[in-house]
């Protein structure tokens, strides 16, 4: 997919950063970053975690003031004392999890704090009409009267964009917007980005998803360790090239890490006709000892729901599960863990980590009972377990008694992962395990998955990153609308997988069922 080549609208850049420097005691987050964005341009901002992206976003949105350097808007120097000033200047930011007001309608969410009013009272019909017009202009199909509580994450993001526009934003920063979206929702969002560009809005797109960057941006700016290391036109670069610049090492290294050991023959997990009305239907698959099965599909396809049903979080209406050949009816996560199933949830902060608790307690949460005697805690076994696990996941050094919230995203994920490794599971289900973490931590997580598969654990990896799934899995399962729509043995054509995910008819019956 290529994006149309657009000539810059005006000579003068609409946003320009010059030699921005910013540090927090001891650490320089930005060391003289500078680049310019023309009006109506879509610029991708990429870089590893810690490269300085979010600091830059905070400076642009007025949350932080840079220690040194200048920020120019339409050629004039500006300094945002607070987020409000940035908003007034026409800069809006949209984050992964949009903040909406669940009890208010879509229209009210858009106009919160500045509803159209007539003689002091809110003019509801005017507000509805304006909201409808705005949504239509963006190509968003939403009823303005819907309570925001009923919206999906993707829809909430769209509302937030509409809100930003109605506030007169001319520069929109999208901070990792697609990490929680399905492929279809991503396409919808990218379409909206294109529409915004057509209307002259300038966009800065911050993401880890390089394929999206290639799809929708005009230029790409790469940050590494607080410096700008590349500023290229998208048409003149490639994903491989970008990764090289970002990380300094080839991506191919990961591909080479295919395991030597082949999966065993005995089936550890067998699922037959699993059904939960309204969520998934007639799901059947098998995972053998030491095998890695990747599960691909759109959000709403039911992958997480199947995983949560296998783990005892949600009920099952029909079908059966066999663990090592024996019937398994998961009653609760506790029961599932005891039976040898482990599940790394999708949302780390919500379901994975207890932020206030210490790192060591988070890491051993699943085995507290085991490490204790008659319910009374013993510290030494806990410390031993923690040391062992920390070594295995290569957790960053430091006191393990600090609160888990003090760790970076990648290390937090390692903490959550080690909690599951501690249970010595027979079946390890990972839901988007490399979500929103830096490349280094990603590599560690994938390495651990491979190690465990080699050791005989049956692994299921739910992922929306097709490249990753292809590299990692022995087989790929595709789900669509609650059903299994395809099953492939790797290596498999990317198109075949995508067709199965979207429910499009196969061009040629190659490599899999529909």
């Amino acid at each position, binding site marked *: 997919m290529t994006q149309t080549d657009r000539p810059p609208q005006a000579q003068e850049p609409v946003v320009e950063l010059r030699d921005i420097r910013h540090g927090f005691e001891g650490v320089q987050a930005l060391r003289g970053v500078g680049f310019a964005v023309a009006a109506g341009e879509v610029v991708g901002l990429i870089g590893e975690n810690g490269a300085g992206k979010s600091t830059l976003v905070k400076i642009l949105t007025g949350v932080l003031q840079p220690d040194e350097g200048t920020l120019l808007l339409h050629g004039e120097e500006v300094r945002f004392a607070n987020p409000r000033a940035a908003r007034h200047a026409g800069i809006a930011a949209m984050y992964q999890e949009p903040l909406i007001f669940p009890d208010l309608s879509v229209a009210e969410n858009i106009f919160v704090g500045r509803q159209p009013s007539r003689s002091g009272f809110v003019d509801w019909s005017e507000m509805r009409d304006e909201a409808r017009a705005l949504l239509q202009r963006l190509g968003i199909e939403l009823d303005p009267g819907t309570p925001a509580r009923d919206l999906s994450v993707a829809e909430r993001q769209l509302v937030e964009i509409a809100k930003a526009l109605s506030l007169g934003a001319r520069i929109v920063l999208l901070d990792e917007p697609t990490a929680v979206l399905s492929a279809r929702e991503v396409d919808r969002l990218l379409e909206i980005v294109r529409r915004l560009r057509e209307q002259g809005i300038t966009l800065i797109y911050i993401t880890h998803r390089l394929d999206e960057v290639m799809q929708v941006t005009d230029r790409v700016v790469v940050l590494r360790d607080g410096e700008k290391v590349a500023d290229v036109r998208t048409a003149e670069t490639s994903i491989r090239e970008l990764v090289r610049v970002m990380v300094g090492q080839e991506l191919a290294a990961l591909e080479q890490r295919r395991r030597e050991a082949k999966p065993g023959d005995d089936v550890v997990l067998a699922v037959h006709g699993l059904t939960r009305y309204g969520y998934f239907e007639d799901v059947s698959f098998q995972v053998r000892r030491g095998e890695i099965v990747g599960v691909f599909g759109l959000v709403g396809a039911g992958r997480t729901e199947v995983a949560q049903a296998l783990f005892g979080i949600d009920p099952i209406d029909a079908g059966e599960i066999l663990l090592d050949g024996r019937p398994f009816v998961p009653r609760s996560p506790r029961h599932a863990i005891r039976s040898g199933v482990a599940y790394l949830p999708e949302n780390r902060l919500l379901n994975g980590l207890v932020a206030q608790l*210490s790192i060591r307690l988070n890491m051993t949460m699943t085995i507290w009972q085991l490490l204790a005697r008659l319910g009374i805690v013993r510290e030494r076994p806990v410390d031993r377990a923690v040391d062992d696990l920390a070594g295995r996941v290569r957790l960053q050094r430091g006191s393990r008694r600090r609160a888990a919230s003090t760790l*970076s995203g990648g290390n937090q994920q390692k903490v959550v992962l080690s909690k599951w490794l501690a249970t010595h599971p027979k079946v390890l289900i990972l839901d988007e395990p490399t979500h929103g973490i830096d490349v280094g931590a990603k590599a560690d997580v994938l390495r651990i998955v491979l190690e465990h598969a080699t050791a005989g654990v049956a692994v299921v990896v739910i992922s929306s990153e097709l490249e990753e799934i292809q590299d990692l899995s022995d087989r790929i399962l595709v789900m669509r609308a609650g059903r299994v729509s395809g099953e492939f043995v790797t290596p498999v054509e990317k198109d075949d997988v995508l067709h199965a995910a979207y429910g499009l008819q196969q061009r040629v019956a190659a490599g899999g069922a529909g």
Partner: protein
Amino acid sequence: MSLVRHALRWEVGLTVLGLTLFAYMSLASSDFVTSFTLQSLALNATVIGFLALGVAPVIVSGDIDISIAAMLGLCTIVMAEVWQAGVNIWVAALVAVVLGCVLGLANGIFVVLLELPSLAITLGSMGAYTGIAFLILGGSAITSFPSSLITLGSGLAGNAVPWSTLVLLAVAAVLAFLLHRTTFGRAVFAIGSNKQASRFSGLAVVRTKLLVFVISGFMSGVAAIFYAGYFNTAQGGLGAEDLLPAITVVILGGVSAYGGTGTIPGVVLALFVLGVLQTGLGVLGFSGQEQTIAVGLTLILALAVSAAARAVRARFAASAARAPA
């Protein structure tokens, strides 16, 4: 736990506050450091102490129970009625404790099993339990409990320390062990901090939270025994005035209103501070209501100090923080 550091700071502050107040009161009035006064201090603190110990784990687990005083009332009245019907007082006392557990369990069923907000439910059960208590007793009162009960509730061990204080401290020690040294206790903290993640990690959330409400009811039942033993009377509406002090003691003790942090020793220290404050003011001639004002002000002061400390620490940390990725 990583929270140990935070807790220690709070308890240190409490101890300092308590000792300072004690010193001040001793200097301000010669009547303060008499055995009579100190014993009254301890005796008066007993009922509130049990209530506070009971509700503290609930708050740590992320909920609240404002029916504790109503449960106290109902348990005392039932115990009195049962005794008056001819049953041995200690059997009646056992009934009170068991009833407390049942009442707590009822709260737990609505909050935990039906997943309803605890403030609203315990607001309702508070009314319900108080109402039932009134229905049972009407407007009358039961008094003149047997001397064995009175001895427990008002008597002194070795002519020095009240029995009730010894029991309170023993129970506090057991509860502290339960909350800080067992997997159950760790689960309570984890659940108070992040219930969803705790559930996903295989912690027995439902069982733990139900148990926490049962403990609250249990403590109310125990408090009932000591209420009868000290005040020697049971009538409708009793104990209602103890709700505020109990919650105050818990918050003053360092338990966060949002759950996830706090210690039992902190609650005990706060009980001591409050006792010194109220008894001391009483000795100095302040009325009961004026003492209550002082209690309110102390609560405000404690939280103001902690807020200020947090702000100061945050300002230092802001410059020390690394740039988030």
